[in-house]
């Protein structure tokens, strides 16, 4: 693994680094500086390097090892805390946490193989592996399957044993893929992660949520300011599995309504659904890549209006994550709605309307969607 050493960077890169380290130091002190240094070192690694303009809307060379960097920070924190404090991690306390984190680890490993060697596994093989993984998780731990989500028809299906299991498995695989698909702009998926773990941490106060909030906050600062990093498949698959597991448990426990989770995770789910429909209508495979996502179109709209290409990219991600998951976090912090309320479906409906109106407008004023695969 070859790594660029810090002093070899250019003057503009050094000023970017200085800003990132300053923000990390102010928010998370010495620990934040350590996490930022670790991420900086890994971002310079030639392993997992993404060519310019290959990933999402990025036009700079960036690393796909963001997921690895976040994982290392979380592991150091949790292992250290378990070794020298009275804290007992979830995987020791409960079987369902052990199975969930095993599934998260397997998702990370699946994505990591792809980050290190693109097309190492075929898309169908990865999809099949995720079905097997989540199918096994929900089969062994049916505690993750919510029995009521506020809709009579869906509740009926969820309460039918095999059907409920199949439905949640399909949803889980779709959700993990949706989060991977949304990881195309700086600060988009990390922003969703910060808002989500912020909510979970405020609600439960679990050290694991605190560690994840810390790691993703540092990654968010790094990602938005420099654009040198993406979560990569390891990060987006692992994060998708973690958000899914904690979200499902929150709904099952009755701490959160399904509407709350729908509003919190709105963008990846909605963008995935709209992309699949767009590709199906165009006669393409639902797996074929295209540039018709809202973040692609918003970036194309912002690019000529913002001087720095990195800032245009970051502004795109921050606007989308801030107006969806960020809005949920703000409403939660202001305690305007109880987390168990079905009124969150109202906010979800507003987010859907905002997405569709913006996409419709941008599609009407911009060139047609381009697809990577032939019809």
């Amino acid at each position: 693994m070859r790594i660029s050493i810090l002093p070899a960077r250019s003057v503009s890169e050094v000023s970017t680094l200085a800003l990132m380290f300053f923000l990390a130091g102010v928010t998370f002190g010495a620990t934040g500086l350590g996490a930022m240094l670790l991420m900086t070192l890994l971002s310079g690694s030639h392993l997992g390097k993404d060519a310019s303009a290959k990933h999402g809307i990025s036009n700079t060379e960036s690393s796909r090892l963001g997921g690895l960097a976040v994982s290392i920070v979380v592991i150091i924190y949790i292992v250290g805390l378990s070794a020298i404090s009275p804290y007992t991690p979830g995987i020791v306390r409960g079987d369902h946490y052990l199975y969930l984190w095993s599934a998260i680890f397997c998702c990370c490993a699946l994505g990591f193989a792809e980050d290190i060697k693109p097309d190492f596994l075929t898309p169908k093989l990865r999809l099949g592996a995720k079905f097997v993984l989540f199918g096994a998780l929900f089969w062994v731990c049916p505690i993750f399957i919510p029995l009521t989500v506020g809709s009579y028809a869906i509740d009926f299906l969820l309460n039918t044993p095999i059907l409920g299991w199949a439905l949640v498995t399909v949803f889980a695989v779709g959700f993990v893929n949706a989060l991977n698909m949304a990881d195309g702009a700086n600060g988009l998926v990390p922003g969703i992660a910060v808002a989500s773990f912020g909510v979970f941490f405020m609600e439960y106060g679990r050290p694991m949520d605190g560690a994840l909030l810390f790691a993703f906050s540092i990654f968010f600062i790094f990602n938005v300011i420099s654009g040198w990093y993406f979560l990569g498949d390891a990060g987006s698959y692992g994060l998708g599995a973690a958000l899914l597991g904690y979200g499902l448990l929150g709904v099952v426990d009755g701490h959160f309504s399904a509407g709350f989770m729908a509003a919190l995770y709105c963008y990846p789910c909605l963008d995935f659904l709209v992309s699949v429909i767009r590709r199906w209508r165009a006669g393409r495979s639902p797996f074929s890549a295209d540039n018709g996502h809202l973040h692609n179109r918003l970036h194309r709209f912002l690019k000529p209006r913002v001087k720095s290409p990195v800032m245009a990219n970051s502004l795109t991600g921050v606007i989308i994550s801030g107006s969806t998951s960020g809005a949920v976090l703000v409403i939660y912090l202001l305690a305007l709605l109880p987390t168990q309320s079905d009124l969150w479906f109202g906010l979800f409906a507003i987010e859907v309307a905002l997405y569709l109106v913006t996409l419709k407008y941008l599609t009407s004023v911009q060139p047609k969607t381009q697809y990577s695969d032939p019809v």
Partner: protein
Amino acid sequence: MRVILYFIIAIGLIGVGVFESASMSADDFKRRANNEAVVNERSIRSILALGSVGSLIALKIISDGRQTVMLKGNERFLAPGEVLIKSDVD
């Protein structure tokens, strides 16, 4: 060689936060054993180690460890003597 040194520094700095969080937690165990209240003030040391946001997170973990979290069964803490090394408590 220099890269390895940077990695060691990075892990060491993260370790500073881990030790600070752990010592705050261990200190709270001592206070709880004496039926004392949670300390809600942040020390200079905790702000330097964990930052303005991180020290708030550590405080919440400790206060929730005593109240909500334990009541709801989301986290369980072992008795101090089972895990803590004397040097960590003192």
